[in-house]
């Protein structure tokens, strides 16, 4: 079973994402912010990361830049999932190493399509 780290400061979003991703046969690990997510990745790198942008302590963008410099940090497929829905943010995320980008609000079909797109399903 593949693992997905869901990083979002909203417990509601984490709960929704968990429900969708468990339905797609992922084992879920949660983090509330970038710092927690880095610690989680240092313990064990997941196959996928569903990543919010705006979070306290360390935001998604900074997390991604740190992640990609970790040993093996280029492995996880990172799918941003954020309300930052403009071209500039999307381009910045891809430049930093994101594999896909979901604009909130989202539903199961969108998550499934994006995870398929990056070869996770």
């Amino acid at each position, binding site marked *: 079973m593949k693992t997905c780290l869901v990083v979002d400061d909203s417990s509601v979003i984490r709960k929704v994402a968990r429900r969708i991703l468990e339905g797609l046969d992922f084992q879920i690990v949660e983090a509330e912010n970038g710092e927690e997510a880095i610690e989680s990745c240092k313990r064990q790198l997941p196959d996928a990361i569903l990543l919010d942008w705006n979070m306290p302590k360390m935001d998604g963008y900074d997390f991604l830049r740190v992640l990609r410099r970790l040993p093996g940090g280029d492995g996880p497929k990172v799918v941003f999932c954020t309300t930052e829905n403009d071209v500039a943010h999307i381009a910045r995320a891809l430049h930093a190493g994101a594999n896909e*980008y979901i*604009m909130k609000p989202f539903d199961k*079909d969108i998550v499934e*399509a*994006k995870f398929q*797109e990056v070869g996770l399903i």
Partner: protein
Amino acid sequence: MTPLDYDYLRRCLKERSGLVLSADKQYLVESRLLPVARKSGFSSLGDLVHALRSGHDDVLMTAVVEAMTTNESFFFRDKIPFDHFRTIMIPALLASRRTSRTIRIWCAAASTGQEPYSLAMSLKAMERDLVGWRVEILATDLSSEVLEKARQGLYSQFEVQRGLPIQLLLQHFTQIGELWQIAPELRAMVKFRQFNLLGDFSQFGLFDVVFCRNVLIYFDQQTKIDVLSRLSRVMMNDGYLVLGAAETVVGLVDSFKVVPDNRGLYTPNVRRPPAAATAAKPGPRLVAVNGAR
């Protein structure tokens, strides 16, 4: 709506669009036609049917037929047909059409445009191989309403996230408020026309590729056979037919054969000299990719 009204509507839909509704779909008709009835000033579906029976209101009949069509579509739907397009169909046609340097594609149930635009994006990614080629994409649908949306190429955030890779969104779309509009260059690659699949295909000429996906499922067996048979007569001998995941030619017609190991992909079985066929009906000139006309 009385059972007699429902039977009348079923007959109308079958005659006008080929759409077949089973006896247990009255709820679907009611839910889709109530907005049409209200918009047209009728107090009930019975009154709407009464007006249709008078036979004097073609506009109302068209609105009813269009309301009953299913227009769900998304970019690169099912993915595999577009992989086939990129890796099988276009490479084969690049080799076989070296002389004419023309490829003609028909999306026969284009809905709101995601399918023809997905093909246009695929062709754009291959534009270096297509320099000097004329590639025409004809996109037709029964519903003029969905075609108007397709022509505008404006999609919601939800629509652009279903099947469209984020890189292609950035590459080919402009954000307009909450919506995303596909680039004028890609819009210019597709020619949209209102067309009923029960109508005469020969007006369009011959095609190298036909995408006719997720529409035959709404037809009865005889209409499927009729549409497939007529499709085979407007396709080049070495052309390709792409059907939806739940559709097949098997058991219906022998004018197409399965392309082995490629689900949903078919090629004509009828043998006719390609050159003669081309000369017989070159088809109207549509729109070119690459600016190469």
